[in-house]
């Protein structure tokens, strides 16, 4: 029996979809069998950044409404051999086309076949959010160091506390070293302490995220990128490894290493 983890944030655009794709890919690279579930009905993206958009035949709503069997809707990522799969969201349907009971049943089915089921939650706290958390065993909360994102993250923690899901684990995404070092934004410790949840990992701002998403290749595939390392560490921690946190200082060292090292 696998585990269902919802990736949520409250605020939009902080990196839920990016994190889902990259953590999922990193887990697949660690030989786990992973199914990514896109719950952003009407505004799906996960298929795009995985480069699977044109392979979609059926979607989650087709499954719920009986037009397709679950296995028919699931797309295999050909880059991995039987490790990474996607259940796409519907692009022309309403968020209310699926409810919490249906989600629980569906995710329950998936957990029989996969080690990890990662649910990419839509922004907001409406039906899409409710559906996404209804079936989850655990939650990953994504925020950026921006106060507004942290506020929304706080709100989400409160909502998740009312469910049977354990306290979410935090990812701080899009960290810009210089701003953090200058004190322009809250630092990692301050954010973690303020939200009082466990820190799962940090991901630095990295242009390569956008570049690779545009090509349909999650950044985590290439270990030389700084964001890739962040996501690889997060995946390892999810698997139970103890991996030291990347620090701003260490990041600097690796920067010098990069400059003088053989690679790049």
């Amino acid at each position, binding site marked *: 029996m696998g585990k269902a983890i919802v990736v949520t944030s409250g605020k939009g655009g902080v990196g839920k979809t990016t994190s889902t794709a990259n953590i999922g890919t990193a887990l697949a690279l660690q030989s786990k069998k992973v199914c990514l579930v896109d719950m952003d009905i009407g505004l799906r993206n996960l298929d795009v950044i995985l480069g699977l*958009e*044109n*392979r979609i*035949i059926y979607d989650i709503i087709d499954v719920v409404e009986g037009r397709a069997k679950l296995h028919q809707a699931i797309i295999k990522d050909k880059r991995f051999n039987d490790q990474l799969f996607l259940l796409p969201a519907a*692009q*022309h349907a309403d968020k209310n086309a699926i409810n919490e009971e249906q989600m629980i049943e569906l995710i329950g089915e998936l957990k029989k076949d996969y080690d990890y089921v990662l649910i990419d939650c839509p922004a907001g706290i409406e039906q899409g959010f409710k559906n996404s958390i209804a079936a989850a065993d655990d939650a990953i909360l994504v925020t950026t160091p921006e106060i507004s994102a942290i506020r929304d993250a706080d709100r989400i923690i409160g909502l998740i506390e009312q469910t049977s899901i354990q306290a979410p684990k935090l990812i701080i995404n899009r960290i810009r070293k210089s701003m953090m070092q200058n004190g322009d934004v809250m630092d990692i410790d301050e954010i973690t302490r303020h939200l009082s949840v466990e820190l799962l990992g940090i991901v630095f701002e990295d242009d390569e995220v956008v570049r690779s998403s545009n090509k349909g290749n999650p950044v985590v595939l290439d270990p030389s990128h700084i964001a890739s390392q962040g996501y690889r560490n997060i995946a390892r921690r999810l698997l139970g490894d103890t991996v030291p946190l990347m620090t701003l200082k260490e990041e600097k060292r690796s920067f010098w290493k990069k400059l003088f090292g053989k690679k790049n």
Partner: protein
Amino acid sequence: MNNAVTLKGRKEGFQLILHSSASFEKILEEIKELKVQLKNDTQTGHELNFYVKTGNRELTDSEKKQIEDIIVDDHFSISSFQSDVISIEDALKLHQASRPRLEVRTVRSGQILDAQGDLLLIGEVHPGGTVRATGSIFVIGELKGIAHAGFSGNESAIVLANFRHNAQVRIGGNVHVIEKSEGNSEQSDEIKFVCVNDLHIIEVSPLHDLKTIRPEIGKHSGGLF
């Protein structure tokens, strides 16, 4: 001398001609008289079949029913009603089915463009967008989303486009993903068409094979003849 209906013997049966200038009441009246007359004239056990020519008149279903009620019995039957005219609504339907629907637009992510019959799209189908037709689909522009021809099951429909992007083509219940991969020449900068072959397999073929593979394309009559 009757002036509302005329009866003619033909080898297919009796032709009952309703005159366009006569009122429907008069027609019914005369058909009643005719029926009585015919019943008297024909030997019992003899079967008679009629077909009704309504001329420049289009009968409603209830009018047809009234005529049938008079004529049809154990020995008399009506095989068809034939009219020289059709309603504007039906004419439009035929007209539409007999020529491709022309659309000039962009079909964006999440949008579905549906067409009865053939569809000629001038414009782009964006990733995540869908064009669907019960007939064939012809795209002048870029196909980056889904083109679903023969939507209601017609497997002889085709999709014709310039397949230079990642896209998806469906014909009837068959699905084909167009994407760049090694040793695959489907994606190129020339016009091709996708069809379902005799083995029920989707196939991408160069334009010059169209006339051989689908000679019927372009010879639509709209079902009128």
